[in-house]
């Protein structure tokens, strides 16, 4: 449910590091709480986002929720598969349902995030 290699925010987003590029998505808890995801609104590639700032919106049939970026930097890629077919966020939240890739300004930001066990403990 909460892969060990990822870092987590209290707003239920995850981060996967590849060099200095952070891949960002929402957790299983988030997608299960939302229910069927039917709409994802993401920013333009090339725009900047600050750590913990809003970067988009995600909607299910019944609910609207803001997306907050667990890391800050330049958004180098957005996942058009998620905006075109939002159900991928329910189906593969840690895989093809990722949302944005951020080029990190400062890797020390990662210290502000939780490991899987700590995140999971916040859900109980």
């Amino acid at each position: 449910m909460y892969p060990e290699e990822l870092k987590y925010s209290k707003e239920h987003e995850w981060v996967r590091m590849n060099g200095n590029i952070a891949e960002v998505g929402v957790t299983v808890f988030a997608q299960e709480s939302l229910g069927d995801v039917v709409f994802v609104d993401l920013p333009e590639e090339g725009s900047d986002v600050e750590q913990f700032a809003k970067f988009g919106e995600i909607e299910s049939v019944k609910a609207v929720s803001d997306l907050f970026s667990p890391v800050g930097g330049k958004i180098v890629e957005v996942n058009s598969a998620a905006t075109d077919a939002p159900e991928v966020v329910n189906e593969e939240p840690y895989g093809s349902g990722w949302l944005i890739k951020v080029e990190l300004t400062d890797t020390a930001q990662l210290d502000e995030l939780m490991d899987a066990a700590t995140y999971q403990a916040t859900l109980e």
Partner: protein
Amino acid sequence: MGIEEKLLSDEAQSTTEQLKKTVLHATHVESNAKLVPFGGWDMPVQYPDGIIAEVKAVRNSAGIFDVSHMGRLIFEGPGAETILSSITSANVPALKSGRGKYNFICNGSGGIIDDAMVYRTDEEKFLLVINAGNTDEDMEWITPHLAARTDFTMSVITDETAMIAIQGPTALEIVDSLTNGEASKIRRFRIGSADVAGIPATLARTGYTGEDGFEIVVPSEQAVKLWKALRDAGAKECGLGARDVLRLEAGLPLHGNDLTSDTNPFEAGFGRFAYYEAPNCIAGFALQQLAEKEPERLLVGFKMIGRGIPRAGLNIHSSGDDSVSESNRIGVVTSGTHSPTVDAGIGMGYVERKYAATGTKLVIDVRGRPVEAEIVDMPFYKRG
């Protein structure tokens, strides 16, 4: 993410008061339903397969809904017809035995306190079904008007009975199989009695989804047995989330959203259900006056053209300007969702009359993002 604080609709309103539970509550928990407060009741909003799967089941086969939270009143006696004529907008004397009619309970200004179904189950006996969340307001409104008469009795049967709706293209076949074919003798908008899976039941051939089906009233203690019999016969368990999508796709209004005490039946486009000629109808004079003038605003259905989902409370603006502002605001969204059946954002809202024609382009202010929409004829979905 900020899920908890941003969940939409009154279903998510937190409440400190004790929530009521229907007799099927434990069955919903067993089925791992997600429960939410609704109209003072702890109700299933969805089951594990999710709202979209539930909507599809009702459109393609059949779904069951626990609607036991809805208020159920029996009016009986020689004066029952007269009293119902005075408190509802139905032409009750013209309602034949075994038939039902959609109607409004309106205040003295013609504002809609509630929408309801009235059924004549026998010559001098009626069933009135009202919304769960409005039961207290309805009773407060109705009760003083009852005191003047003694030739009828009113009994609230909400607790002693349960109500289960089965809806969808295979609903009739399922209920027929459990009633030895008795169900299909009850035609659309009619009501009758039969044993369903051996349980004595009242069956109304009505619903709130745009599909064929029944709303079945049984004694409380038999409700779990009926629920399981319908489920075993192939109907999928569905929650309030799916019910809200289905009714919106079918162009059916929801009281509290599309209808309120500040709106009247004519601006909502349901003047045909506002009969005001009964001599003793309390709202009769107000309704007649409203019927004789053009409403300033009208309830319309619209479909999103741009990317976005309409939600209740969002502002509607006229199209053609560069930006949305107070000066081009023409109305407000009262219901909205993503429709899995139409595969688009759909909604209802009130707009100024001159903007209410089919085909008119609108702009919905989706939390700061202007998104184009177009007025379309309702229903959004019609069964084939």
